[in-house]
């Protein structure tokens, strides 16, 4: 039989219900034991990885393909992607493109962006670009790589940029 208490209940001792239905969102950071005994296991958390790739400031961007990440967890999703341009190309047709690709166990690489990002002279120094994804959910053993392609023959090539991929990985 269910009993109902109208109002508040103060227990001046230990409360040990057999089961308890906690109200949603009742736990805040301050309620979690901060001592080493209370540390929350990494396996209990969804981990946010920032996968980064960059080329040096003050040096012309060069073509390069580089592996970024091999997924260990059972699944993940990309929460956000950002590209920061340090110095944009100027005065001609020089440009570079940035693509983010994924391969599963078949090792067939495919872009996960709706379109690769082009950094040309229409961009400004310090531009931040947030490309759209055509695939956000990933599985264990997926591989990610970045493909940078520099092209053009006139003007000044861009110098320095940073790619950040924010990946939420479930253990």
């Amino acid at each position, binding site marked *: 039989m269910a009993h109902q208490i109208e109002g508040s209940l103060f*227990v001046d001792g230990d409360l040990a*219900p057999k089961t308890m239905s906690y109200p949603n969102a009742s736990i805040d950071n301050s309620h979690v034991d901060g001592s080493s005994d209370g540390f929350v*296991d990494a396996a209990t958390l969804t981990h946010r990885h920032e996968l980064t790739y960059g080329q040096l400031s003050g040096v012309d961007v060069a073509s390069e393909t580089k592996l970024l990440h091999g997924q260990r967890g059972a699944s993940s999703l990309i929460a956000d992607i950002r590209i920061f341009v340090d110095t944009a190309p100027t005065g001609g047709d020089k440009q570079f493109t940035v693509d983010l690709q994924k391969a599963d166990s078949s090792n067939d690489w495919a872009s996960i962006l709706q379109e690769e990002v082009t950094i040309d002279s229409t961009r400004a120094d310090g531009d931040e670009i947030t490309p759209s994804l055509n695939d956000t959910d990933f599985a264990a053993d997926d591989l990610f790589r970045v493909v940078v392609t520099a092209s053009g023959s006139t003007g000044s090539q861009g110098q320095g940029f940073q790619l950040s991929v924010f990946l939420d990985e479930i253990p």
Partner: protein
Amino acid sequence: MSNLAVWQGDYSVGNLAPKTFTWGDGEISNTDIEGNAKMDADKLVHRIYAPYTQPVGTDVITEDKIIHAARFAGTIVAIEFMPIQVPTDGNKYYFLGVEKSTGGGAWARIATFFVIQTTATNLTVLTADIYTASYVANDLFRVDCNAQGTTGSQGQGLIMNTIFDEDSA
């Protein structure tokens, strides 16, 4: 019946389903949390390690490199540095540190720089003094490394970690 009930001592019941519940600070420990909880990443403050390295066996060179683009606001926890092989026998040295740009503004130091001369010790962790720990979304961070000197042997190999606690929203 009063709307305030007080029990002195322990109390055991079946299922307890309060409308609200006041947790005591530090009451929840790892064992209280379901092992398969998979707490959302959006509910956590994330500790991010932004490493910067130069290869072992190669002279340290001058370069600037972006190491972190802040998605949300946060706090810099620490900047830790370890030289692998320090300079020897001359005046060669290098210095490096972390700089920040806010809103596309000029790069500015956020902490003391590390100066690695012949008097430094291999494989010893050094810690920077941080001027302003807090940062805002979209701040950019870079490492500014400068190799100097003409005589002796330059240092080879280094690792520096800048550690951020960053909000999820």
